């Protein structure tokens, strides 16, 4: 393999360093107007009247649109279709869109938006997720405010617990996590004279955006054309939210026949767009004296906010990952996503799993402590290996490199196992896994397309339906195309993702781009290779089956014999008027899920990881310093090891924010208290510990060159590793994120030092 597996530089790196880019706010069109959104100032109210006169009298203001102006359906189509695009009778969260104001300048639009007066009859909001579930009087969704309830029933937990030697039971909580992408949400709509409308913007999922715009404008899909602009980070925050923005620009653009741009400012973005679901978990685990995990019972409740958006899918992933990467024959999971009068929560790297894994991995360490086992040893006795069955009854056959990730971390870290020193330094472990792709909850979307064109000069362009978000997809896919066709990497160009170039390829989520688009590209490239090889076969008089493409030439599989440079084969095909372009298509292997028992082949395959955190805790201030982290990930095949390591480093830092500092919360009226970066504390580069990234490669036969998706996994096990390290360092167990100095200090004060098991 010449290109796949190589540490080539990310395609965009140089441009980003130089500040070259075509981000949405860099784009401008003749006659373009600017939009601003009128939002609900309260968490729950009935709308009595919307007064737009004053706003329209402001110089430069052009128009105000409300739900009454929508030609199609007033709904953001995601899963359950409960979310209006613009509020009609009720508002259900602070920041809910009510109207869109248009003006010639952005500041004018924003000022005019403040002058739209909305008369509201306030209603008491429901803000607490546990109170919201089965609330006796307020019904925000259905009868019980539960968007979705999922269950896993496996074995007999009651009987199993009675045979356990140790049982650990605890409650855990995690708060919002804000995506904090560098570029806020941004979108432009450009209506064309031929009756089509073009949407360009910052997004993960062009096909979701297309669906939303067709629905709101009442147009066929053929007339809505969506192109992704350069996107400055997403992390799940640009999965469903861009659909809202696209409608906020498409409606006025369509009505006024002018291009419309909308860019959220940072506070607006933080107040009104999705975040990681806050969670509450009750977790009971039991093991026998010899360290075998016998039974797990979990109640998992997450706050979906006012509308369901992606919550059922988020809940699905959390449910499947509820017991961690372990064999366990007796499992009962009940998970709920509930409706509250808070901002709708949605996708965020890990997608419902980091919250439950924080609980699951904290539990494992407590079991180890009670059993007098080293945390690594308890995990080793229970972790999933090839041939084992998951808690959903899925039989694992290949690409199960979990134990090797554990070995690699233990080996690299030299984790001291002797007498524990009283120096405030501690180590904490987590082992986690990640179901690759959409899984059974999204299997209807588990297909993707690609298009590849080899030009007469030998250069290649390709198109896919998944998007570049900073994760490095463009580079990885270019490497795959280069490998398949023998084209030098610098001659391979990806066209910006565009709904007019490939069929609906589903969303760019679930760490699925490398495997899905990679496979679709392989399919397309394979068709072109066939043409090239057939042509070379004719010229060289060697059967196609005996030819291969190696470093820019078609050569005989056996060392001897004539060869043909690729360029020449391409020329020859061009002369012969043969088509050197092809469409590729990939459909995932099947997955399944029984809603009643939670049994089935939940995901096509899994990535695996072990994290180890070394921390120092200041006993007097409660401050945690993360000194070093080791992380080993089974990625199947690292198409680009540098980019894979980049994912690990970024995920760890984002995970450290979730673990230690990021703490967004609402007041008693449902208003987010800290929607800015001086009070919502994300880690900086200066906060990054030394990170040792280890790549483990147990190939996945259905992935391109053996690759699995894993971009989300680096974040997922960080918080429990840190919590376990804090416990190891100073003997306190923190069960609520973030692990702030105050919480550690309080725990130290009240615990009077529960001794840590010596080892």
């Amino acid at each position: 393999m010449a290109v796949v597996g190589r540490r080539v530089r990310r395609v965009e790196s140089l441009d980003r360093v130089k500040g070259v880019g075509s981000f949405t706010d860099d784009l401008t069109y003749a006659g373009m107007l600017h939009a601003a959104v009128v939002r609900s100032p309260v968490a729950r109210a009935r709308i009595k009247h919307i007064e737009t006169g004053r706003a329209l009298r402001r110089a430069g203001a052009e128009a105000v649109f409300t739900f009454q102006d929508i030609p199609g359906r007033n709904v953001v189509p995601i899963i359950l279709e409960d979310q209006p695009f613009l509020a009609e009778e009720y508002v259900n969260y602070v920041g809910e869109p009510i109207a869109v104001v248009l003006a010639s300048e952005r500041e004018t639009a924003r000022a005019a938006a403040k002058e739209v007066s909305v008369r509201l009859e306030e209603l008491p909001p429901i803000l607490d997720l546990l109170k919201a579930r089965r609330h006796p009087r307020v019904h925000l969704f259905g009868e019980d405010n539960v968007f979705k309830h999922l269950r896993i029933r496996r074995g007999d937990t009651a009987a199993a617990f009675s045979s356990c030697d140790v049982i650990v039971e605890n409650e855990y909580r995690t708060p919002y996590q804000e995506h904090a992408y560098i570029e806020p949400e941004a979108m432009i709509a450009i209506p064309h004279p031929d009756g089509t409308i073009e949407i360009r913007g910052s997004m993960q999922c062009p096909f979701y955006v297309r669906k939303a715009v067709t629905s709101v404008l009442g147009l066929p899909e053929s007339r809505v054309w969506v192109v992704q602009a350069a996107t400055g980070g997403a992390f799940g925050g640009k999965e469903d939210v861009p659909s809202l923005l696209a409608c906020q620009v498409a409606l006025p653009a369509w009505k006024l026949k002018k291009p419309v741009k909308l860019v959220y400012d940072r506070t607006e973005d933080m107040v009104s767009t999705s975040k990681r679901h806050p969670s509450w978990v009750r977790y009971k685990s039991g093991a026998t004296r010899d360290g075998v995990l016998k039974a797990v019972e979990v109640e998992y409740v997450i706050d979906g906010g006012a509308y369901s958006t992606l919550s059922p899918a988020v809940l699905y992933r959390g449910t499947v990952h509820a017991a961690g990467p372990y064999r366990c024959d007796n499992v009962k999971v009940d998970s709920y996503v509930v409706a509250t009068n808070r901002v709708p929560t949605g996708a965020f790297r890990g997608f419902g799993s980091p919250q439950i894994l924080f609980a699951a991995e904290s539990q494992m360490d407590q079991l180890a402590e009670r059993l007098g086992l080293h945390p690594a040893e308890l995990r080793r006795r229970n972790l999933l290996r090839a041939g084992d069955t998951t808690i959903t009854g899925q039989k694992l056959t290949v690409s199960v490199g979990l134990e090797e990730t554990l070995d690699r971390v233990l080996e690299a870290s030299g984790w001291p196992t002797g007498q524990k020193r009283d120096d405030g330094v501690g180590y904490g472990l987590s082992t986690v896994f990640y179901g690759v792709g959409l899984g059974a909850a999204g299997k209807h979307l588990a297909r993707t397309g690609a298009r590849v064109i080899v030009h007469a000069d030998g250069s290649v362009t390709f198109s896919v339906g998944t998007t570049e978000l900073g994760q490095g997809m463009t580079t990885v896919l270019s490497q795959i195309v280069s490998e398949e066709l023998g084209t030098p990497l610098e001659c391979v160009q990806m066209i910006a993702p565009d709904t007019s170039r490939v069929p609906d390829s589903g969303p760019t989520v679930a760490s699925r781009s490398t495997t899905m688009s990679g496979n679709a590209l392989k399919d397309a490239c394979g068709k072109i290779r066939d043409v090239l090889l057939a042509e070379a076969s004719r010229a060289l008089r060697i059967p196609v089956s005996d030819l291969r493409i190696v470093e820019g030439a078609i050569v005989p599989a056996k060392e001897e014999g004539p060869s043909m440079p690729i360029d020449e084969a391409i020329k020859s095909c061009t002369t012969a008027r043969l088509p050197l372009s092809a469409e590729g298509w990939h459909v995932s292997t099947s997955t399944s899920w029984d809603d009643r028992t939670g049994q089935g082949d939940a995901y096509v395959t899994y990535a695996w990881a072990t994290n180890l955190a070394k921390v120092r805790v200041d006993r007097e201030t409660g401050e945690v310093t993360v000194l070093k982290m080791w992380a080993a990930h089974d990625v199947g095949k690292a198409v680009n090891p540098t980019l894979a390591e980049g994912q690990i480093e970024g995920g760890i830092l984002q995970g450290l924010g979730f673990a230690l500092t990021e703490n967004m919360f609402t007041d008693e009226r449902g208003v987010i208290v800290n929607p800015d970066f001086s009070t919502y504390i994300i880690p900086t580069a200066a906060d990054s510990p030394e990170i040792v990234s280890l790549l483990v490669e147990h190939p996945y036969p259905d992935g391109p060159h053996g690759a699995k998706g894993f971009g989300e996994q680096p974040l997922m096990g960080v918080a429990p590793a840190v919590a376990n390290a804090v416990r190891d360092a100073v003997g306190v167990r923190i069960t609520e994120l973030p692990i702030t100095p105050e919480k550690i200090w309080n725990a130290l004060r009240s615990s009077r030092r529960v001794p840590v098991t010596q080892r």
Partner: protein
Amino acid sequence: MIDVTTYIRPGSLEEALDVLASGEFTPLAGGTDLIPHARGRGPRKMLDLSGLSLDRVTRTASSIEVGACATHSELCRDAVVTKALPLLSKAAALVGTKQVRNRGTLGGNVVNASPCADTVPALLNHDAVAVLVSKDARRKVPVEAFITGPYATCIGPNELLTSIVCEPLEKPTFVSFLKLGRRQAVNISRMSLAVCLMMDGKGSIKGARVSAGAVFPVARRMREVERLLAGESPSKRLFAEAGALAAQLMVKESGVRWSTPYKRPVLAALLERALAEAASGNFGEQ
């Protein structure tokens, strides 16, 4: 958007003071506080000070005069400041980020008068004096009196802070500066402590200067603590007493808030630590 209606960048101090005489202009130094304010209801008329060469550090026989427009980065690397005012240098090094330190100025930090301004406790320990000039007057106000409340000073609308005069402390003096925040950079102080211990020849504390930021509504010297330390020999018990006294003062003046149960013991512990660190001589001597 920044809605600035008038922007003037004079080339001389006289010209600047003429403009300021109208009382309508806000001086703009590094802009790290002012520009974010200007996005909201901040000032609309700005007087850019960058053409006035107010960034010099001058040493006289008894004092060091730091130009108001000296940036935090300059305070970190200026040979005179790092040697004679190591506390100020250390405090400046903990401001914001590299980018903020490259733009932000000492004068700006003082005039903005945030309760958690990093340089202010260091300045207080050096009996710093603000030099204020206007078209027809010039006056000197101790920094301690200059800052009158959270984000409030006694500067007049026609006045410009041109420099800050600091008194280096007699030798041997041991210093330390500690800051509690929530991360390693762009870190707004939750607590900052500047400590100077002036020692006599026999190992006793002749005099002490202890200032706290983000602890009281306005950063201030803790003279009660200084008196407790003066004349004593450094000891763990003494420093613990000093810490306890500081915590008491905080609760008395700032009242009990949600953070008090945590901050009270942590202030005590941090001051104890800062004093021990100063006494050890590890942090720096001047």
